[in-house]
């Protein structure tokens, strides 16, 4: 006894096609939403970079106008935080677009220039306003050429969080940027990443947490400066005049 095929069981091509359209719509909306947020990120990144450029320019102008450095009005933490925010946003854009995407590389170049400007300005500020800061310029390379660079980067992030007096600037050694070439030639750097330039001294090769802490001890008394820096950052606006 064989029954007729029931109506609900019958293959309805139209319904399956409608389902396909519906699925494509949902699937496409996922991509659309992602693209929209990435574009927002890039727009935010452009705004942030513009803000930082304005703030750097503003501080540079203050230095130029005033015969003395404007240490009384100095609030470099805003500048530094802006720079960190840009770096995080840049990393996010890099994750989404891919590290070799042309738009990402453009943004990275611009960020590197801002980093150099930030470094130059802060070096001058630290000297003029006698701020207890130590500067690390860090050069990394891709994983293939420099397998230890990722680890070194993480250790430096840890140090940045642990010691607020540290100012760390990281650069892609192979980024094609004349400003960066100038920086490399100033310190006569060889292509042996990871490279760290601490104040004006060059250190080649991977340094673990203890080694790096020992090196930093040469420049600053870590324990005392850590406390002092905390006090400085909380009352940055009342820093002593030159």
């Amino acid at each position, binding site marked *: *006894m*064989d*029954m*007729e*095929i*029931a109506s*609900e*069981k*019958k*293959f*309805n091509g139209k*319904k*399956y096609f*409608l*389902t*396909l359209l*519906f*699925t494509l719509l*949902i*699937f496409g*909306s*996922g*991509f659309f*939403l*992602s693209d929209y*947020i*990435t574009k927002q*990120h890039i727009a*935010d990144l452009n705004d942030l970079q513009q803000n930082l450029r304005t703030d750097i320019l503003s501080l540079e102008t203050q230095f130029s106008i005033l015969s003395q450095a404007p240490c009384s009005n100095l609030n470099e933490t805003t500048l530094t*935080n802006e720079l*960190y*925010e840009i770096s*995080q*946003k840049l*990393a*996010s854009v890099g*994750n*989404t677009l*891919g*590290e070799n995407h042309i738009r990402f590389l453009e943004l990275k170049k611009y960020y590197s220039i801002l980093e150099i400007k930030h470094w130059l300005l802060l070096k001058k500020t630290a000297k003029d306003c006698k701020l207890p800061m130590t500067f690390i310029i860090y050069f990394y390379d891709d*994983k*293939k050429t420099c397998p230890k660079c990722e*680890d070194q980067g*993480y*250790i430096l992030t*840890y140090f940045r*969080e*642990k010691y*607020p007096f540290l100012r760390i600037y990281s650069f892609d050694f192979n980024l094609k940027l004349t400003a960066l070439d100038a920086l490399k030639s100033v310190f006569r750097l060889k292509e042996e990443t990871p490279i760290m330039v601490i104040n004006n001294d060059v250190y080649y090769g991977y340094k*673990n*947490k203890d080694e790096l802490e020992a090196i930093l001890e040469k420049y600053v008394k870590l324990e005392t400066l850590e406390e002092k820096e905390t006090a400085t950052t909380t009352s940055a606006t009342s820093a002593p005049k030159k």
Partner: protein
Amino acid sequence: MTKNETMPIIDIIIYIGLFIALYFGALISITLFENRNQLYKKQGVFNFPLVSVLLPCYNEEKEIEEAVASIANLDYPKNKLEIIVIDDGSTDATLARAKILQAKDPRIKVISKPNGGKHTALNLAIPQAKGELIATLDADCRPAKNALKEIIKYLQEPDVWAVTASIKILKPQNILEGVQYAELLVSAFLRKIYSFLGAINVTPGPLTVFKKQVFSIVGLYKKAHLTEDCEMALRMQSKHLKIAHTLDAVVYTKGQKNIKALFRQRIRWYRGFTLNLKDYLPLFNIKQHGNLAVLLFYSFLGPLLSISLATVSAYKIARFSARHISNGWLIRFDFSPFLNFRHLSLVSFNPKPLLFLSIIVLLIIFCYMMLGKWLTFDKTKIKQNIIFYFLFYSFLNASWWFLTGLSIISGKEIKWK
């Protein structure tokens, strides 16, 4: 290979998997929308046919009294109910207890036979059953009082040959039972949608009611790789006998309390389902079986998807954990500097399409679960162990399918318990 070369392949696998999962979700949603006014049978019961409830038992001395009581107390005319307890050669006191129950209630009939498996027990009872309708019930299951009445509403229709009930976990306590509870809510909802598509592929042991004529059309139960309930449904489908599902007839079953028992049960089910499908390959003919064929293709694709997505996810989770452990080692596990959250920012949120699509899929599953709860009038308070369903179910399901694959390849016979 470098990270950049392997990632797109992994991403492609995930995107294909998500697309297929979303297509399935869309098909279910559209079918639900089409049938939104037919979720329940509104008409009453015109007449109450005699129902024979078959209760196959093997070493069920702890369950039998409660199981028989749950049938005897069903909201159904007392003189229209026959209860047949089949003792399948138990080595405990099942038979003795069944006989005591029989002495108290004339509606109860006890049959005893040497052990031969559930299908032999059912096959012995079916010809002896007086009812126009045959209900099969497992000894560890308890039907809700209204279950039979609700099922009868469907069987009044001439083209419906069997009706399955919505299965729930009886008083879910531990995490594992919570996972099974959530799983069965999803399953109750999906089975209803499958019934609209004419694609039910199992007439579960916990409670299914058949018109007795079914067995003369398709024959009695077979051993069927220890999943006789699945084989019976496939056999009925091959003869185009309609199987309906009811959301308002609920049967409670005891969940597997430990992981080993759960694995054993699922491997038996999945293995049986796969091997039975192999025996019913003509069901994959879309011209002949339409929606059923499509959904059976899906049930083959499902395990492959499940295994590949779970493997990729497990790989990603393992890589993420390994990176964090290795980072922790670099700083001698001194994470305290990061706890000041000085540079915490939401900007590092990485909005890949994968994230949105995965969230949509999880939301769809969550909706199925809530629909399963809502449509079956479940008042159980959702507990936190539901979270474990979302966290671990995909991995559990993938491992069941993986082990099922191994079990089939090895060709080794498995046992009930």
